């Protein structure tokens, strides 16, 4: 059945294909995650490089400007409060040059602020040069007073200007700090992104691994387990058919197991059953009988053994032919089986000779049962249109001692059967040994029935 199915089945994919698919999934995932992380890493590197090339010089530019402002202030102070003309001139010139130095050009505010120093300090220089020179003495009182007033007002303007410089300096320093912070934040943000992406990648990798594990479990491990269960069931003689597997190789295993199971069943039947009647053959009957006897001994139960033979069966064959003989055997088996209790066993020991194992029956019960069979066969066969009327002889033996062996019991039952035969056939005979036991237990002694 399953063999035929396999031929009509569509072509199943091979395991190689499953493994290839899972490998591609894993590789594509790992490569894409790595690509994303590497891209972000290179972005981070580019950011660092950019900060090295542009941001760092910009920060340095701010720092230099802040220090130069400090110098401008100091030079201005010396112009305002310096004690001799040479010192004043020297610092005024330097301050004037610094006021136009291109290093302030990065910030329009700084550029404007420092340029204001030029005019102011030029004015201060001129005023103070006159104040400190002999020229001052030649001036009139009013001119002297005006010049001193001018000097005072210039000092006030310088103080105000210094406040501006101070604020500018603070602004430049805070600008530099915020540049640095911005840069740091950018780099930190990028690094955090890398961490998040890498973390997500790792989590997704776990998911991918679970998917791969599930696929392998579903398509490899489950079918193998199924096959294993089927083999185990086979060994124990139970029925178990594994579900069809998705992949070619495992499906082959399942089909092989199914085929093996069918073959084994057939072989078992062939080895244990009589091909004509379907009941246990001699070998198998002996095996079953031995098992039943062991159980009886173990649990101290009752059991009867009956030998049955069809009377004058040779005549049936000779008179009606072998086909009718075979039919007779089959029907006889059927009639006996229909009356047998559930746990009883019937075996065909050879020719027209059968044996029965009747558990949980004492001698009386076994004799009664045998009698009912004898009657049933006689009635059924005489009613039948296909077989001639037949009679059977039966020899009954029961288990008496825990040491009783199956061969002995069978031969004793056989002896009783022989007695039935010699005593005129179509009767049930309880063996002498059973009879003796029976007479010990009950006064009633029914030896034969007819």
């Amino acid at each position, binding site marked *: 059945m399953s063999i035929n199915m396999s031929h009509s089945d569509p072509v199943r994919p091979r395991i190689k294909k499953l493994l290839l698919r899972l490998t591609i999934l894993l590789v594509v995932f790992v490569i894409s995650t790595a690509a994303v992380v590497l891209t972000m890493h290179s972005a981070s590197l580019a950011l660092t490089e950019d900060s090295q090339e542009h941001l760092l010089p910009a920060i*340095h530019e701010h720092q*230099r400007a802040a*220090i*130069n402002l400090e*110098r*401008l202030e100091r*030079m201005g102070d010396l112009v305002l409060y310096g004690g001799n*003309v*040479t010192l004043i*001139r*020297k*610092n005024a*010139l*330097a301050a*004037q*040059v*610094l006021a*136009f*130095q*291109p*290093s302030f050009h990065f910030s329009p505010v700084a550029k404007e602020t420092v*340029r204001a120093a*030029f005019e102011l300090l*030029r004015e201060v220089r001129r005023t103070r040069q006159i104040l400190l020179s002999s020229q001052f003495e030649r001036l009139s009182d009013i001119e002297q007073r005006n010049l001193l007033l001018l000097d005072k007002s210039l000092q006030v303007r310088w103080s105000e200007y210094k406040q501006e410089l101070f604020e500018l300096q603070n602004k430049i320093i805070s600008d530099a700090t915020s540049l640095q912070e911005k840069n740091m934040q950018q780099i930190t943000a990028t690094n955090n992104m890398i961490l998040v992406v890498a973390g997500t990648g790792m989590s997704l990798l776990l998911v991918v691994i679970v998917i791969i594990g599930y696929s392998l479990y579903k398509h490899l491990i489950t079918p193998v387990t199924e096959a294993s269960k089927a083999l185990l069931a086979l060994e124990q003689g139970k029925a178990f058919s594994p579900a069809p597997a998705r992949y070619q190789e495992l499906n082959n295993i399942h089909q092989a197991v199914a085929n093996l199971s069918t073959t084994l069943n057939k072989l078992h039947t062939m080895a244990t059953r009589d091909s004509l009647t379907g009941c246990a053959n001699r070998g198998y009957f002996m095996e079953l009988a031995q098992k039943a006897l062991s159980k009886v001994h173990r649990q101290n139960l009752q059991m009867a053994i009956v030998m049955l033979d069809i009377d004058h069966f040779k005549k049936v064959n000779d008179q009606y032919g072998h086909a009718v003989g075979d039919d007779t055997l089959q029907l006889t088996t059927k009639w006996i089986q229909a009356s047998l209790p559930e746990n009883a066993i019937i075996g065909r020991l050879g020719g027209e000779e059968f044996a029965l194992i009747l558990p949980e029956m004492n001698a009386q019960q076994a004799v009664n049962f045998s009698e009912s069979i004898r009657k049933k066969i006689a009635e059924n066969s005489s009613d039948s249109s296909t077989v001639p009327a037949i009679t059977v002889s039966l020899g009954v033996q029961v288990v008496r001692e825990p040491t009783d062996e199956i061969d002995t019991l069978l031969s004793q039952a056989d002896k009783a059967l022989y007695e039935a035969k010699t005593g005129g056939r179509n009767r049930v005979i309880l063996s002498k040994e059973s009879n003796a036991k029976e007479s010990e237990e009950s006064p009633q002694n029914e030896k034969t029935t007819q």
Partner: protein
Amino acid sequence: MTFNFSALSKMLLLTIMVIPALFLPVIAASPLEKAPIKIGISTSFPPFNYKDANGEIQGYNADVARAICEKMQTLCEFSPMPFPEIIPALEQGLVQFAPSNFLWTPERAARINFSEKYYRSTTSLVGLSKDSFEDPMVLLQQNEATIAAAHSSAQWRYLHQHSAAQVVSVDTIAKGMQALEKGEVDYILLPTLFALNFLQRPENTHLDFIGEPIDAKSLTGDVHIGISKTQPELKDKIDKAIQSLVSSGELRVLILKYFPFNVY
């Protein structure tokens, strides 16, 4: 197994011993046996480049050149020459580089390579102190004014292109200053930082900046080292050396040796 191992270790040992020997001649040869790099430099004007009492070339430009050579780990030697000869010398490969206060102009860029900036400057008009409150842009447009400028300098070129005044070419700034003092010219147009040191000296109080520095793109901003185009790889080396001097603070030390504030 043992034999293989010992043979392997012998080979390894041999390799380790041979590798340094391979490099040895290279290490020995590199700085010493090469011809020294020649540096074009003028000796005209402190604090940028001048000869001291012993005849040694000193100044900011000379110190920067020495520091760059040290960073490049090469031997260098100065080839003193007047400023107008420096660009032709670079073009002919007679000198390899020249720290000569070059402002970038397209004409120069066609002839020489420029390093990154090594300081920044402006240009000022210098004249007699009595004129210090005049507007230089007005003076530059006076036909009767005579203005000195170093031949082939950016200032000289600017005057030819943008000034109505009579331009007097001088070989060196020092000669221009002498002409100014003698009254041969009314003004001189020159890099502000050149003028500053000169004007700060007590003997020059009769001279002064005329107004603010000239507001012209070609006269202000980054100042570069000129590099010969015959050695294109030298630009990268010099740029790296300058970057290193900036980030290590060495350049700042050199600047403050010669200038009252950071001119970078």
